[in-house]
């Protein structure tokens, strides 16, 4: 049974190097001391909880080379913008002995059960690195259901675990919850790769509901229809295309540009300026995302 699906030793070393560049000598000495007692579960747990008291919560800086190493070991794994305590907690989890599967799962599960907000955020951020990855699927769905913003974000945003392990209904649930809670969709790892016909249908239904209530629909959500433009949803996308809101129109243009559906191509071609903007790269989903956060 595979414990780790990546090189744990190398990952631990890479994180140790990032921690070294971002922490004080006192914090590193403390961690070294705690490492000697890490085999005892109560001591392991207490250290996990106490980390911010001894390390502080500065935002870590990661060099492009360091980021590349992380990405090479676990594709999509990303620590940029984390606080130091979160990074160290994730590293600390790698120091837990995983040879006894039952004991390992029990310890990590109990950390989840008694975690406060920042601990939960660290635990969910660690999902791509935990041993026995297939066992955390239920946990991930629990994290998506959380009502606490930082916890949801730790699961949903810049985390490669859900795209890799969630089944389609759970994945769709994650995307819809992200939309309901106004999360920046473009930061969901694997968003385009895991788009699917069922999700496209859910999203058009959702748009009808919003429109019926006189509410707006986030332009970003149309991105998920790109590979699924059909006669069924072309009328909705045409409505978005004709919106007075330039960002909405831009979103429709990007969908049409990525689609193979002939009527969509034709509509896009009716606006050569917009077509040129997309071709030159001046208009992209990241540009749309940036415009939305400005508003």
């Amino acid at each position, binding site marked *: 049974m595979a414990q780790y699906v990546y090189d744990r030793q190398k990952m631990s070393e890479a994180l140790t190097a990032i921690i070294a560049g971002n922490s004080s000598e006192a914090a590193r000495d403390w961690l070294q001391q705690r490492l000697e007692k890490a085999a005892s579960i109560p001591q392991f747990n207490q250290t996990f*909880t106490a980390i911010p008291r001894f390390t502080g919560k500065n935002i870590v800086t990661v060099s492009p080379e360091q980021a590349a190493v992380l990405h090479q070991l676990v594709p999509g794994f990303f620590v940029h913008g984390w606080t130091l305590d979160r990074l160290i907690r994730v590293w600390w989890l790698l120091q837990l002995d995983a040879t006894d599967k039952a004991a390992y799962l029990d310890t990590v599960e109990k950390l989840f059960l008694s975690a406060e907000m920042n601990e939960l955020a660290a635990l969910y951020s660690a999902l791509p690195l935990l041993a026995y990855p297939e066992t955390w699927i239920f946990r991930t769905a629990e994290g998506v259901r959380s009502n606490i913003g930082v916890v949801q974000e730790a699961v949903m945003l810049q985390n490669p675990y859900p795209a890799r392990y969630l089944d389609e209904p759970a994945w769709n649930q994650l995307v819809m919850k992200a939309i309901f809670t106004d999360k920046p969709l473009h930061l969901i790892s694997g968003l385009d790769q895991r788009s699917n016909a069922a999700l496209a249908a859910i999203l058009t239904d959702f748009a009808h509901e919003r429109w019926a209530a006189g509410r707006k629909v986030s332009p970003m959500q149309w991105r998920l229809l790109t590979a699924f433009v059909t006669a069924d949803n072309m009328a909705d996308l045409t409505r978005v295309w004709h919106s007075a809101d330039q960002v909405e129109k831009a979103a429709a243009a990007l969908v049409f540009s990525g689609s193979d559906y002939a009527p969509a191509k034709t509509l896009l071609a009716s606006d050569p300026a917009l077509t040129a903007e997309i071709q030159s790269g001046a208009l992209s989903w990241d540009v749309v995302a940036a415009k939305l956060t400005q508003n």
Partner: protein
Amino acid sequence: MCGIHELTEKDLQPLTYTPAYLDKIKGMRFFDPHVHMTSRTTDDYQAMADAGVVALIEPAFWLGQPRTGVDTFRDYFNSLLGWERFRASQFGIKHYCTIGLNSKEANNEALAEAVMEIMPQFIYKEGVVGVGEIGFDDQTPLEEKYYRAQLELAKEANLPVQIHTPHRDKKKGTQRSMDIAIEHGLPPHMVIVDHNNEETVKEVLDRGFWAAFTIYPFTKMGNERMVEVVKQYGSERIMVNSAADWGISDPLAVPKTAALMHESGIDSNDIHLVTYVNAVKAFAQSGQINEADFDIAGNIDQSEKFNGSTVLRGGQQPRINKNTTIIR
């Protein structure tokens, strides 16, 4: 259809107005060191923020009905560290908590043992500023046993202790609580004695403990009496809280009391001490309070405030419907 005229969302918004007492305390910041937000609605957070409450402490307490297992305690502690902290943050209020086994439930020995076992997992968590609220209710031997055990935990973790003093036989219960704390080697400056009244305050202050007063209608202190206490004893080591919970109580008790003190001619520096500074100082001994965080918390992001994961619905209006300054 019910036959009345068609209602729109606008008709359902609560009426809002600014109570007069808010003018008297404009620009003041308050710290409520004892309030059970779990029992309150989100409207209360909004009203507290509007009245200048920038931070608060939620002590672990009794939920009104005894818990039957340790898991519900774990969930409760988790909610103090998670959901409540998040809910408060949506209004720019910094939320801290104290963790403890309350005196009433200490009388269920099997449960108490199980709770004591999980306590060390919680008292070292971020933003836990003390062991509390612990002490006596009926003053039974079991209450004493777990009070003592928790004093030891607090001592080991170097955390302040927040003591709940009993409603019945209060004077004796308060004295005993202080004696036992000293016996366990806790210095008085690490102990906050709560729910004081005119009968207990002198001894608590004379012995060097912090004296907290709960402004709670009908059962504990009224704030007119509180004004008299501050006039008589000054502002050193005295603090005011609301202890608002599931009973008839008022989460705006601290700002209202400040307004009444202002009206009664108490010096604004003394008001600041008893409604903010002293409590911050006492609980900052935990190493878990950084006043700079209050400003960060106050810097709320409107988009976050109204997003779908919050407790508010888009466009919902604050509701302030308690406009008298006096609480009797």
